[in-house]
């Protein structure tokens, strides 16, 4: 665990942003990842007094505050109804309930970790990141951006009548995934995200017209690059990706 000289529970996003411009300072989400770091920090910036721990639903979208926990998105009835359990399936394997009561959506998205189930799931949906200074940008663009010192305020997920499904594979329960796949469809227009390759998740869009689930999966899996690490080889990951994309496409009603 790192040491810190000060702790400030901010009263506004402007205060958070200003404090965060100093390199020694750090925004604390759930602290699950941060606490593994060492060294000396200046000020820990706490956003928990800004009411950003709510999931709000409007006609067009869900707005998920950065301080919402992974457990909140797992259990939210609105997200469950709209996206058929894809959020629950993407996070339920992450360590345990106590962990998911702590880890935040903001920290998970900001981190853009290679192994991230959360990023993979969100990329298959029409998702935007709301940054305090940078405004609203598509998550895919945010995922490719270099790390900056802006504040992630909210994650916006559009309600565009998309159906979605998720699958991951782990060598042992609660470990990082060896592969993570999320697939969504709107009519025969498909959006496919693959993470833990082990590079961070990316997504592609494909037209499924005239293709079987097998053909769609083969074409989609070939669009991504794969690497090897202790959890699995590049070849194994490429194979798993194709299998899971095919299964998810079938789950979403794509004919065999």
């Amino acid at each position, binding site marked *: 665990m790192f040491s810190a000289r000060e702790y400030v529970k901010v009263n506004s996003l402007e205060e958070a942003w200003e404090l965060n411009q100093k390199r020694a300072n750090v925004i604390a989400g759930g602290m699950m990842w941060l606490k*593994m770091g060492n060294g000396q920090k200046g000020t820990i910036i706490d956003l928990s007094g800004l009411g950003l721990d709510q999931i709000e639903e409007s006609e067009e979208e869900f707005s998920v505050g950065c301080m919402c926990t992974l457990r909140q998105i797992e259990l939210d009835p609105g997200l469950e109804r709209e996206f058929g359990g894809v959020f629950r399936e993407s996070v339920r394997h992450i360590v345990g309930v106590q962990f998911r009561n*702590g880890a935040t959506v903001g920290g998970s998205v900001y981190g853009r970790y290679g192994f991230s189930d959360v990023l993979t799931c969100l990329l298959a949906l029409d998702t935007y990141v709301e940054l305090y200074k940078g405004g609203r940008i598509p998550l895919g663009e945010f995922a490719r951006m270099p790390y900056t010192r802006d504040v992630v305020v909210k994650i916006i997920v559009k309600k565009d009548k998309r159906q979605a499904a998720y699958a991951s594979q782990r060598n042992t329960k609660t470990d990082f995934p060896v592969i993570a796949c999320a697939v969504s469809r709107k009519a025969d227009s498909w959006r496919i995200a693959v993470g833990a390759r082990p590079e961070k998740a990316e997504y592609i869009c494909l037209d499924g017209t005239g293709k079987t689930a097998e053909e769609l999966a083969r074409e989609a899996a070939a669009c991504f690059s794969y690497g090897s690490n202790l959890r699995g080889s590049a070849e194994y990951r490429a194979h798993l990706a194709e299998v899971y994309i095919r299964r998810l496409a079938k789950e979403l009603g794509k004919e065999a």
Partner: protein
Amino acid sequence: MEINLILNGKKIKAQIRPDELLLDFVRAQGCWSVKRGCETANCGLCTVWLDGKPVLSCSTLAARADGRTVTTLEGVAAEAEAFGSYLAEEGAEQCGFCSPGLIMNVLAMERELSNPSEEEIKEYLAGNLCRCTGYMGQLRAIRNYLNRKGGETNGENR
């Protein structure tokens, strides 16, 4: 810095370091049941409740407890003892180091899920590692404990 909280039913005002972990804070307050295991958010030994929800005190800053309610095993001693007797009956403890965290999460699960299935129990407790028992005794003890008033745990949550 100063924090005010309710710890096991008692109002407390305390001075803490900005980087102090909740784990170190509750132990300094005499809640020795809370154990430091992996310290990497993996094992669940350090489980306490924050406003009634189970969290990992090894990864939570004490400052986050300001204005909130923290419960450790010491705060639910009678219930913990009752469930502990089910663990003992099944021979489900060896070194016992994991028990306080497990008990806190089982009691949280009992409050959150009505009549959980075996799969739901396993999922809820996936973050409570035990190096000794192989889990089967713990699962028997949990089932017996949840069924103590008659009935069967059969999963009517989803």
